[in-house]
C-alpha cells in the first residue's frame, strides 16, 4: 500500500519533467527562468493534488457505508495536524512568491544600452518605429492578404519597447475612433505588457536564438482582436545593421526630426539645449534625472513625464520655475512628433 503512490508519482514525473513542452519554445534567459518556476509549480501542484484527492478517494473506499447502523468516530479537531497543513502550504506559497518576484524584477528592469524601438498599437495592427526613422508596418501580399508587421532585432542584444496606443487613422476627429487598450504578448519570451492609451508603457527582451517569433494582442480590443498579430525576426547583428540602413528607412532620424521641431515649434525660446537657464528648465542633461516639482514630490524625467509636460504643461511644474507660462501643445504636435522630441531630448547628454 505504501509504495503505490510512489509508483504513480514515478509514472507522472517524466510527464512533468517534460512540462516545458506545454510552453512555447523559450528564446530568452527570462523565459527559461519562467519555465523553471512553472515546472516547480506543476510538480508541487501534482503532489498536493495526489495527497488531497488520493486521500479523499482512499477514504471514500475505506469508509464506505456498510450498513444503516454504522458507528462513526467523533473527531472534532487536531491542532498539530491543522498547523502542519496550514504552515507547509504557507511556506511553499512564500517560496514561489519570492522566486516569482525575483524573475519579475528582471522582467521589469531593462539593462543599460538596450536598443530602443517605439511600438504603436491600434485597432487592429502593430507599427514599429526605429530611432533612425525607419518604420515597419503591416502590408498586403500578392494575394491581397495582410502580412503582419515584422520587427527585426539583433540576436543577443537587449531590446526595449516604448509602447503607445493610437487611433485607427492619425489625426482623425471621429469621436468613435479613440485609442483603446491592447497588450503586447511575446510568448517566446514569456512577457506581456498592456499598451495603455494616454501614456507610454515599456518592456524589454533579449532573444538569444535567431528566428521568427509571434506577437499577439492579449487585451480584447474588438472584432479584429484575434487577428492582431506581429512578428519579431531575430537576426545576427551585422544583418540587422544592414537591414536598418537599407532602403525604406526614414529620411531623417527621430532625434533630427525632434531637433527640427525644437526650432520650428519655438521650444528653443524657453528651453535651452546647452544648459543655460531661460524661462523653463534646460533640456541639457535632463534625461533620466530625478527632478523636484512645485508643491513637493519628485519625478523622473522619462518618456511619460516629457509627454505629459508637452501636452499638459502645468501638471508637474519643475520647482523654481514659473507655472502657467507654457501653453499646451496638444493638437499641434502629432503622437510621432512627441516621440521625436523625446528622442531629441535623450540625445542632449
Amino acid at each position, binding site marked *: 500500500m505504501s509504495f503505490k503512490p510512489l509508483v504513480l508519482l514515478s509514472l507522472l514525473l517524466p510527464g512533468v519533467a517534460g512540462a516545458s*513542452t*506545454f510552453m512555447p519554445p523559450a528564446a530568452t534567459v527570462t523565459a527559461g527562468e*519562467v519555465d523553471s*518556476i*512553472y515546472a516547480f*509549480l506543476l510538480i*508541487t*501542484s501534482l503532489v*498536493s493534488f495526489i495527497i*488531497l*484527492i488520493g*486521500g*479523499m478517494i482512499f*477514504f*471514500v473506499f475505506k*469508509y*464506505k*457505508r456498510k450498513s444503516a447502523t*454504522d458507528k*462513526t*468516530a467523533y*473527531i*472534532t*479537531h*487536531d491542532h498539530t495536524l*491543522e498547523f502542519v*497543513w*496550514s504552515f507547509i*502550504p504557507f511556506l511553499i*506559497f*512564500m517560496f*514561489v*512568491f519570492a*522566486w*516569482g*518576484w525575483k*524573475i*519579475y*524584477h528582471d*522582467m521589469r528592469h531593462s539593462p543599460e544600452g538596450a536598443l530602443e524601438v517605439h511600438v504603436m498599437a491600434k485597432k487592429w495592427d502593430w507599427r514599429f518605429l526605429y530611432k533612425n526613422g525607419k518604420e515597419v508596418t503591416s502590408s498586403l501580399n500578392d494575394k491581397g492578404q495582410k502580412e503582419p508587421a515584422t520587427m527585426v532585432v539583433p540576436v543577443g542584444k537587449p531590446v526595449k519597447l516604448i509602447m503607445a496606443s493610437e487611433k485607427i487613422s492619425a489625426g482623425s476627429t471621429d469621436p*468613435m475612433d479613440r485609442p*483603446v*487598450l491592447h*497588450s503586447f*504578448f511575446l*510568448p517566446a519570451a*514569456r*512577457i*506581456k505588457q*498592456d499598451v*495603455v492609451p*494616454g*501614456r507610454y508603457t515599456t518592456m524589454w527582451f533579449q532573444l538569444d536564438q535567431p*528566428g*521568427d517569433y*509571434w506577437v*499577439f494582442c*492579449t487585451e*480584447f480590443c474588438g*472584432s479584429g482582436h484575434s487577428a492582431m498579430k506581429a512578428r519579431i525576426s531575430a537576426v545576427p547583428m551585422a544583418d540587422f545593421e544592414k537591414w536598418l540602413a537599407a532602403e525604406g528607412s526614414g529620411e531623417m532620424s527621430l532625434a533630427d526630426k525632434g531637433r527640427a521641431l525644437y526650432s520650428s515649434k519655438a521650444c528653443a525660446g524657453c528651453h535651452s539645449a546647452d544648459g543655460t537657464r531661460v524661462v523653463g528648465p534646460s533640456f541639457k542633461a535632463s534625461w533620466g534625472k530625478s527632478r523636484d516639482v512645485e508643491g513637493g514630490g519628485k519625478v523622473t524625467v522619462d518618456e511619460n513625464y516629457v509627454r505629459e509636460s508637452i501636452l499638459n504643461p502645468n501638471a508637474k511644474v519643475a520647482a523654481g520655475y514659473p507655472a502657467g507660462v507654457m501653453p499646451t501643445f496638444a493638437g499641434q504636435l502629432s503622437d510621432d512628433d512627441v516621440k521625436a522630441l523625446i528622442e531629441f531630448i535623450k540625445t542632449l547628454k
Partner: protein
Amino acid sequence: MATATAHHENSNYLNHEKGLWSWLTTLDHKRIGLLYFITVALFFLVGGIFALLIRTELYSVGETIMTAEQYARVMTYHGAVMVFLVIIPGIPAFLGNFFLPIQIGAKDVAFPRLNLLSWYCLLLGAGIALTSLFFGGADTGWTFYTPYSIKHSPAVICMALGVFVAGFSSILTGLNFVVTTHKLRAPGMTMNRIPLFVWALYSTAIIQVLATPVLGITVLLLAAENIFGIGFFDPALGGDPVLFQHFFWFYSHPAVYIMILPAFGVISELITTFARKTIFGYTAIAYSSLAIAAVSFFVWGHHMFVSGQSEFAGIVFSFLTMLVGVPTAIKLFNWMATLYKGSINLSAPMLYALGFMFLFTIGGVTGIFLATIATDVHFHDTYFVVAHFHYVMVGGTLMSIMGRDLLLVPENVWSSLQRCLGTCFIRVHLRWLQRHVLSAVYSWIAGHAPSLLRLPA
C-alpha cells in the same frame, strides 16, 4: 382566511396561500428563496445557451456560425449573465434565504420587505441589462474595460445601468443576512455554534455589503461617461483607463468570493451529512471564511500585473494573493479529514460534493500559478485564466448548487424517487464531469496552442 388554512394539518409554506399574486407579494423567506431559484435557473439557461453558442462557434477554425462581432457579443452576455445573474445570487439569495433563518432558529430574515425588494431589484436589473440586446448588444466583455467600452452606445449604457440596479439586490440580501445572523439567532445559538453554512453566508454578506457599492459607483461613472462624455476613464478627456480597472476589480475580486464562499458552506454540510461525521476543525473552517473575506479586499491588483501598475504594487498584490491560498488549503484538508472514519454514503449529492473537491482542487492549484507574478505575466489574458476561473466557478459553485438542490426535494418524494434520481444523476453527473474536465483540459491546451500547433513562423 390565511389563519384558517394555516391550522390545516397539510398546510405548509407552499399551499397556505394560493395564486400568482400571493407569490409576487410574499414576505416568506422560503417563498422568496424559491422565487430566486426560478429566476436563477432561468438565467442559467440563458447563460448556458450563450455558452453553447460559444462552443459551437469554436468547433472549427474561422467562422462557423457567427461573425467576430456576434461572437464578441455572445462572449459578453455569457459572462455577464452567468456572473451577475446566476452565480452571485445563486447560493446566497436562493439557498441562503431558504435555510439561513431555519438554521439559526429565526422565524424569518430581519427585513422581509427588503428581501422581496431585492428580488425585484434583480429582475429589474436583469431586464434593463438584457434590453441592451435590442440595441445591437454590448461587445465589451463582462469586464467593460475602458476606453473600449466608452462608445456612447445605448447597449453599454443599458448593461451598466442593469448591473447597477442588480447590485442593489446583492447589497440588500447581504444587509439582511448580516443583521439576521447577529440579531435573530435563537437563545443559546452562539456565533461559535452556528452551522458552517451560516458562517459562509455571513462572510459573504459582509463582502456584498462592503464591495458591491463600489461596483455600483463604477458602472454609474461608466454610464455617465457614455451618456454625458465626462472624462473619468478616457485619456482623451483627461481620464485614466487603468483607474477603471482598479475600481472594477476592487469589487470583482471580492465578488469571486461572493461566488465561492457560500459553496464552501454547502460542501461542509454535504460532507458531514453523507459521511455521518462531525466537521473536522469547525473553528478553522469558520474563521478561514472570515479570513478569506477580509483578505479578499486587498488582492484586486493581481488582475492587473501587466496593466501598467507599478512594479511595487504588483509585488504587494502577489504576496497578499498568496495569503488567500492558505485558508483555502485549510478547508480542503479539513473536508478530507472529515471523511476519515466516517460512514460514507455515495448518494448523488455526496458525489457532487466529492466532485467539487476534485475540481476545486484543480482550480485552487492553478490559482497559485496565477498568483506567482512571473508565471502570471505569461498566462495573463490567456485560456489558462479562463480554465482556472471555470474550474472554480463551475467545478466549485455550480457543483455545490446542484448537489444541494437535490436535497430540496421533499423527503417523501425523495425516498420514492431516490433510486431513479440517484442513478440518473450519477450518470448525468459523471458524463457532465467528464465533459467538463475534457473541456477544461482542452482550454488548458488551447492556452498553449502557439507551441502545440507550432504556428508557422
